[in-house]
């Protein structure tokens, strides 16, 4: 335990660093996967292609990706950019399917009614379809957040400092407390981000909290096509 008390500053510094490294890939991954997910949702042809590709991307081991990316993109092995890009790729790989599923979950009657009252396709996408896909997007984003926080630790192998440093350093020096601290703090950061996302969901998707209650009260009717 002594190690921990003597190194609180280091733990704090690495935790902040870890959080700083986690956020950009989550946000970038979300932004990139929206058009990709749309493509997968909208056209049968692109659906298989995009989703298979995304699935395959996720199976590439992270270390391999750290090694592969620099020569491909002409960047340094030992750069944050390397980690940022690799983690964004994983985020996209996970998130694309959520976006596609989320868009598919939007009630076709609502989509049609938005068109009927005069939403242009663009506006309909951003102010009707994307918000209504919200709950599914949020679920996907939570997985992405946790996965990213955990993957950031691997960046230590290409010299990007994060809580992962505590793993390698603790292993080399045989300090179990250091390793455990690394694990605990990684989990804590993941939990904090997850909690923030849930909170964000409550703020931007206020109608979803009524649904469960309302559905019980009002019978759901099905449309009879004319």
């Amino acid at each position, binding site marked *: 335990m002594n190690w921990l008390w003597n190194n609180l500053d280091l733990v704090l510094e690495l935790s902040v660093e870890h959080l700083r490294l986690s956020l950009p890939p989550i946000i970038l991954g979300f932004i990139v996967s929206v058009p990709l997910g749309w493509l997968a949702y909208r056209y049968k042809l692109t659906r298989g292609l995009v989703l298979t590709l995304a699935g395959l991307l996720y199976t590439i081991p992270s270390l391999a990706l750290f090694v592969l990316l620099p020569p491909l993109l002409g960047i340094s092995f030992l750069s944050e950019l390397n980690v940022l890009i690799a983690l964004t790729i994983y985020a996209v790989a996970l998130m694309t399917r959520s976006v596609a599923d989320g868009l598919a979950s939007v009630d076709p009657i*609502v989509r049609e009614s938005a068109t*009927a009252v*005069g939403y242009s396709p663009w506006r309909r996408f951003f102010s009707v379809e994307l918000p*209504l896909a919200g709950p599914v997007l949020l679920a996907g984003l939570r997985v992405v957040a946790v996965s990213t926080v955990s993957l950031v630790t691997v960046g230590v192998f290409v010299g990007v400092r994060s809580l992962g440093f505590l793993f390698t350093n603790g292993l080399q020096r045989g300090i179990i407390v250091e390793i455990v601290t690394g694990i605990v703090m990684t989990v804590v950061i993941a939990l904090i981000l997850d909690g923030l996302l849930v909170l964000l969901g409550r703020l931007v998707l206020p109608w979803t909290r009524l649904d469960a209650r309302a559905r019980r009260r009002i019978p759901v009717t099905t449309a009879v096509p004319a």
Partner: protein
Amino acid sequence: MIEFRSVSKRFPDGTIAVEDFSLELPSRRTTVLVGSSGSGKTTLLRMINRMVDPTSGTIEIDGEDIARVAPVPLRRRIGYVLQNSGLLPHRKVVDNITTVPLLEGVSKRDARARALELLDTVGLDRGLADRYPSQLSGGQQQRVGVARALAVDPNIMLMDEPFGAVDPIVRADLQQELIRIQRQVAKTIVFVTHDIDEAFLLGDQVVILEQRARIAQVGSPAEILANPASDFVADFIGADRGRRALRAVHTDGRTVLIDRDGRAAGVLLEGEPGE
């Protein structure tokens, strides 16, 4: 006035929904398109706001060929009410009503004030303005749907089986409300239903459709009841059965109408309604 001229619609899968359909729909009147499923009535309705484009023929609104009008602006000046209200579940009632006015650049304050007035018009409490659609009953949602359609003060309102999904008591209530609202706003309403009673209740002009939107008969409810154009129409409106088949019995110098079970349905009066 809306005018269909030799309109046909063949869908990509080869189904012919509408074949050579021509009709005038007079302004400020309610025209009801009634037919069973497959009669193409919804397709006809959706052609008016270009949700569906005809394969051939033209549709004119006040003499203007709508094929020359971009769909989005066209739709914004036509009210549309769907069966399940089609409200946006993520927007509050008031935001649902102000959607199109805001898209059209009306100020937020004016749009909201107008939305609250419209809640009065459709007989809803203003206190519901900040609820979400899922917190409303089916009947209330339909009223909001009507309010939303009226929000841009359109000349035309399209109603696609708007009362089809609510229970009979609420439906009867909504029908009476629509009659009252129409008296107040006098829009050109195109109303689609498969319920002949609803058609006769609401329609100034009733259009009975067979398959592929072939017109079996057009006329006022009274004209159609008095003189069904074919066996199909007679059968469809149930002219000789049920509660429409009334028998006149002369008793004590008055004419009493008796239904087929022998119960008195009413007394026959002479002269114009309302006298």
